[in-house]
């Protein structure tokens, strides 16, 4: 129950759609969403396959709480092998389409093969059909959304779509839904476009029923909502400032990656912070932030809806950008801003609009631009390569021009679309790429937050903050405060966060609830909704099983323990300012013990007894 128990399999090569029952044995072991789709992927594809070839599969998946009144119960994920990292990829998104898929009666959509020509999938409840996408191929997400709505004459459809960046092979393109929510990381949109699949259009009118114990579910979700509203972060900080509440906090902690991670504090942080988004601008007296907004079922509402100053150079003559749309979240503000040294809030908001409009990850994009700026300042690349753009740190013009080029897959944008690792390698300076397993870092310098160094190095999808967010403990004191500059106890902390997060991600809820909720708050909701017995212990076991399953995929794909590392800059060059001054990321002090408590051998390979214990043997 809570699951619809129905999977739609779409063979794009043959143009067929078939319905199959959900594998309930796997649902009991992996719950849903991230865990369940990863299990399907592991069973169905060769981990060594070409991520952009027809043998890769693309799975859109909901969780058992998706589409219910559980707070934040509107999530879905896009799962496949990543073209950016070669690892398993799972990118999670909010907005409304996850619930719409569930309301239409589907737990999961599995796309396989490759369509001979551009198509999109149109779902209305039980009916699903592949339709010709000729009129939307080559269009941005925002244009395609308009065209598809006009065509279907239904204001209630929800749409997931890839942009021109994905079509032109940008390796960090995402899948955008509801215009500005994104399954953003690891190039899941690139995989979708490689299959000639432009969009999924969905309308669901069946709803989500089959809750195991409805009254207990309503009580459990209501109690859990009260925990969110009584918590300072989820009840006040996130609604007021979004994730951007962190900009000044992390900068103060000296953990703000700046100038391609050369430095750990950004002098312009206060100009691009959540607080700055509330300030009236000089030109028209309006603040950058129009309002906060919720995703489906979310009682936190951290989303930012923003506008760019109409007089700003980026949109002065472009009225199509004068309205409000998805604004800066902390990761985008950091990557587009601090890492490139740009402190122009309007330029960052515009660049973020472009990332949404043409569907590419602002973290990977901003980080790649930062690497390009460092190479440019060193003279490794010149105006000849950049097409005349002066790629200096702090140049808003370079940043926004780069965004437009990547969006369209043109000129120097083709190089930037490779991602930082391939970009730096192409120009002979691989050590300047700030990546793990080919994926760019998020907004926390591991020299100043030691646990994050280990979390990045061991994340199953490359550098990522959403696989084990020890920032919560090390900076914010959730659930208890640990010293960010110490390594002792961090392997245990990282493992605990990684396993718990995998369970959150598999339930259909948002990981941001974990600022207030522990699995003790999640388990009663899952247990009341889903058949079987779901305790905190069981959810933790499911999380650990998922973590090891993903690890096995990556090892089978050819990665080894040697890939569990960080760039030399973070391991050798000490932070030169702020509270972490003099510190490097001390990964070597944490990694061996982490392997040990994971039940992995010294090469980072899960030992047979570990696999057996988790039912993976």
């Amino acid at each position, binding site marked *: 129950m809570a699951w619809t128990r129905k999977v739609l399999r779409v063979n794009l090569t043959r143009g067929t759609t078939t319905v199959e029952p959900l594998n309930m044995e796997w649902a009991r072991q992996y719950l849903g969403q991230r865990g369940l789709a990863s299990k399907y992927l592991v069973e169905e594809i060769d981990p060594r396959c070409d991520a952009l070839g027809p043998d890769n599969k693309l799975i859109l998946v909901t969780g058992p709480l998706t589409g219910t009144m559980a707070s934040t119960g509107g999530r879905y994920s896009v799962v496949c092998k990543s073209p950016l990292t070669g690892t398993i990829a799972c990118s999670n998104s909010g907005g409304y389409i996850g619930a719409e898929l569930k309301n239409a009666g589907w737990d999961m959509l599995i796309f396989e093969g490759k369509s001979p020509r551009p198509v999109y999938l149109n779902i209305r409840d039980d009916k699903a059909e592949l339709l010709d996408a000729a009129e939307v191929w080559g269009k941005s997400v925002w244009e395609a959304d308009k065209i598809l709505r006009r065509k279907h004459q239904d204001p209630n459809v929800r749409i997931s779509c890839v942009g021109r960046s994905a079509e032109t092979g940008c390796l960090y393109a995402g899948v955008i839904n509801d215009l500005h929510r994104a399954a953003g990381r690891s190039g899941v949109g690139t995989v979708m476009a490689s299959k000639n699949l432009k969009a999924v259009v969905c309308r669901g009118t*069946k709803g989500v029923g089959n809750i195991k114990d409805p009254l207990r579910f309503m009580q459990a979700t209501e109690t859990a909502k009260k925990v969110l509203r009584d918590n300072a972060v989820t009840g006040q900080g996130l609604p007021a400032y979004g994730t951007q509440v962190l900009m000044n906090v992390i900068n103060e902690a000296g953990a703000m990656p700046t100038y391609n991670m050369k430095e750990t504090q950004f002098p312009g942080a206060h100009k691009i912070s959540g607080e700055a988004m509330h300030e009236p601008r000089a030109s028209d007296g309006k603040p950058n932030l129009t309002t906060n907004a919720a995703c489906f079922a979310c009682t936190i509402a951290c989303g930012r809806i923003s506008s760019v100053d109409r007089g700003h150079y980026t949109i002065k003559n472009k009225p199509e950008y004068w309205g*409000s749309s998805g604004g800066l979240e902390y990761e985008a503000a950091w990557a587009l801003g601090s890492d490139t040294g740009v402190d122009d809030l309007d330029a960052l908001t515009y660049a973020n609009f472009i990332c949404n409009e043409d569907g590419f990850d602002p973290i990977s994009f901003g980080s790649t631009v930062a690497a390009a700026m460092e190479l440019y300042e060193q003279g490794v690349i010149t105006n000849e390569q950049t097409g005349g753009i002066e790629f200096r740190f702090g140049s808003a013009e370079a940043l926004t021009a780069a965004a437009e080029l990547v969006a369209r897959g043109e000129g120097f944008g083709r190089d930037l679309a490779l991602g930082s690792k391939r970009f730096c390698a192409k120009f002979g300076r691989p050590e300047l790429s700030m990546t793990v397993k080919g994926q760019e870092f998020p907004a926390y310098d591991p020299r100043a937050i030691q646990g994050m160094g280990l979390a990045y190095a061991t994340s199953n999808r490359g550098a990522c903050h959403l696989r084990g967010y020890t920032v919560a403990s090390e900076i914010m004191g959730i659930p208890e405060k640990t010293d960010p500059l110490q390594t002792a106890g961090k392997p245990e902390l990282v493992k605990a966060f990684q396993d718990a997060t995998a369970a959150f991600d598999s339930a259909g809820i948002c990981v941001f609830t974990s600022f207030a909720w522990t699995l003790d708050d999640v388990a009663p909701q899952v247990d009341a909704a889903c058949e079987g017995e779901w305790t905190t212990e069981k959810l933790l076991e499911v999380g650990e099983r998922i973590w090891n399953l993903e690890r096995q995929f990556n090892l089978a794909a050819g990665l080894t323990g040697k890939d569990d590392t960080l760039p030399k800059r973070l391991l050798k060059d000490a932070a030169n300012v702020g509270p972490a001054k003099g510190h490097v990321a001390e990964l070597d002090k944490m990694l061996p013990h982490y392997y040990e408590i994971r039940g992995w051998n010294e090469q980072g390979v899960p030992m047979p007894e570990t696999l057996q214990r988790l039912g993976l043997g």
Partner: protein
Amino acid sequence: MLRALKLEPEKCTGCLQCEMACSYENEGVFNPALSRIKVFMFHESGSFAPYTCTQCEEAWCMHACPVEAIVVNAATGAKDVLTDVCVGCKVCTIACPFGTVNYRQDTGKVMKCDLCGGDPWCAKACPTAAITYVDIADTGLERMRAWAQRGEASTARFNAPVPKDLQNFERVES
């Protein structure tokens, strides 16, 4: 004292908890498509607006109904649809100037808000108090207060969850 649903669009975040609460109470399923209340989103202006029946005194739907299937509930003031009597002619959907009475293909009847018999679930579920159930004579009070206070500096709007007691979501089987 009669009470009315007070809708304050500026407090709405678009979470749709109200739509799920409505469909759950009335249909036993989380399904925005069966909700009597709808939240509309206006992307470019960045605004959200919940919308449902205002329970007109001289209700167009009630007067238009040829079989008297829409009646006044004396306890709540709501105009209730008697589904056993409704013949699905849809004249009420034409008569209502606000579009808040709608036809259902699966039942062949119309549906509209009935204030959940005096305990509207949309208001209980709304996390930001964009929907409240208040004294019918006082729906304008807060807005009057806000206008009276006008002159504050222009700052961005944000809506945070409002502290309140736990709600009772026990369903009354009809």
